[in-house]
């Protein structure tokens, strides 16, 4: 059996009495690509908030690579433990150039003193530059290198943010609806990129787009009302009556 990367037990959080996450257990193996689906308000984003330290659980445990993440700060979980997160809406910095967006994301040198160092280490700087340009090529943004990110299209911003995730050199990548607002072609390319990253990275991908889930998923976890409703391969999930009911009900509501 492969090594366990993420181990969550009986996780709970409530916001003024409302149980957004209500006893979630989740095991994710190292190198696994896990899709997380569920209707609106199921608690998917909240679960990611808990893992990354943005929200504090009211109960339960979160262990990553055998270490408890409880009580760790957001910057420390990101930089020290290597958990990187892409948000639901693209959150790139539009006042910075595409290159600079990656520059602030690159792993290392994140203390005040290091960000102020006078660039004595020229060799290292060159290595960073090449590294960033390599990522820019991977996400098809190399021509836009010196352009302010505000000029990018929606899809390009999503790609830039994926690039930032890569630059962080994290082990665990969390994607919250990475394809929102992308064209079908961009969505497919994103799927292929994420698949390529699996194995060397552990990946959690929250998605609504079922075709996309089908494209990428090795294993799917379905959340509903703050609980795990079902877990299994895409085919198993697709046939699960409980899952069908939740999704049908949602369609009915709309």
């Amino acid at each position, binding site marked *: 059996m492969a090594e366990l990367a993420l181990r969550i037990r009986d996780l709970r959080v409530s916001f003024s009495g409302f149980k957004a996450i209500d006893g979630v257990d989740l095991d994710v193996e190292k190198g696994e690509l896990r899709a997380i689906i569920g209707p609106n308000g199921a608690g998917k984003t909240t679960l990611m908030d808990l893992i990354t330290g*943005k929200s504090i659980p009211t109960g339960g445990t979160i262990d990553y690579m055998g270490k408890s993440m409880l009580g760790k700060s957001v910057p420390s979980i*990101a930089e020290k433990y290597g958990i990187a997160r892409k948000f639901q809406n693209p959150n790139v910095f539009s006042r910075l150039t595409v290159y600079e967006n990656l520059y*602030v994301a690159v792993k290392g040198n994140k203390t005040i003193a290091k960000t102020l160092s006078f660039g004595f280490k020229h060799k290292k700087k060159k290595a960073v530059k090449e590294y960033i340009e390599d990522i820019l090529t991977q996400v098809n943004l190399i021509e836009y290198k010196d352009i302010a990110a505000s000029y990018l299209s929606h899809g390009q911003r999503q790609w830039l943010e994926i690039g930032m995730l890569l630059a962080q050199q994290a082990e665990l990548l969390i994607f919250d609806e990475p394809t929102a607002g992308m064209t079908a072609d961009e969505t497919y390319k994103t799927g292929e990129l994420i698949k390529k990253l699996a194995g060397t990275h552990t990946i959690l991908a929250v998605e609504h787009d079922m075709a996309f889930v089908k494209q990428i998923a090795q294993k799917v976890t379905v959340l509903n009302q703050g609980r795990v409703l079902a877990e299994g391969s895409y085919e198993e999930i697709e046939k699960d009556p409980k899952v069908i009911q939740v999704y049908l009900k949602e369609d009915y509501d709309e």
Partner: protein
Amino acid sequence: MKKILNIKINYYFDALLFFFLATFPMYSSKFRIEQMSRYLCYVILIFSLDLLWGYSGTLSLGHSVLFGMGGYIYALSYSLKDGEVPAFMKNAGVEEIPDFLNALSDLRTGIFLAIFMPAVFAFLIGLFLFSSKVGGMFFAVITCALITLASLFLNNQSAYTGGANGITGVGRFVFGGQKLSIPQNYYFILLIVLLVYFFCRWLTRSKFGKVIIATSENDQRVKFLGYKTSLFKAFLYAISGMLAGLAGVLFVPVSGIIAPTDITGTLSTILVIALAVGGKGCLTGGALGIILIEWAQSALSESFSNLWQLILGLLVIFIVFFVPEGFMGKVLGWQEKIVMKRKETNNG
């Protein structure tokens, strides 16, 4: 040609401005030189405000307090330097220099503290405000309240601050036993302005600067990249406080006096207006803004003081509605559009 177009246009403005400032004393009266010396101090002050508001997006409405802190500490140190009890203290019944002021009797320590104390003060306030989850508006209100606190303090402690009269009789800097003349003092300040300018350019182009700009857009996201953003912003506020203190130190020998009105008056507001009108986040806009506004103020208020207030008010309304990015911001926007167009035609 392409290279020249790619250089940010405000750098040309900077070069012109420094050329103008360097030649200014050659054709100006002593009165005007002294006046411009004062504006130069405000330029340092507005750079320090721009670091905060323009780059990190946090508006400080009480920046004159940090400026005043530097000015007062320096003035106090200057009046204590001969080891005698200064007149304003005697009048308040102080017979002997109290122990806690002993350190100030050395002018060099005085200068150090005048720059260091505002930095520490700003850092502590920044740490408190940025790590509690209050918004930018709250920061503006708190810094505004600092003005009231400062004025209370100055009046309560009048034995050491000179009360409403302030501390007077501060002379210009002395180098090698020689007191600087008005033009010499001007060039001395100009040199420091230049150094501060390069320092700010370096700072904002460093990785630290990029992180700060990023926090102005989305603080949360920067945290998720692994940066302790509240520490970064508090540190920036400290640098800003340090520069404001420095501006205060340079200001007092020019005006010869520091009084509560220098802090509690309109200075903070004028700074914010000048930065908004000139364009924040590029250093150039603030420098142009404060020099022009101060100059217009003195030119107009010498004859019609009420008219000036009206013009200033209208100017603010005009800027807020029609050019929210300020003069320099607008010009930089034009340049960026032209550069983008060229890139597109080159690619297509």
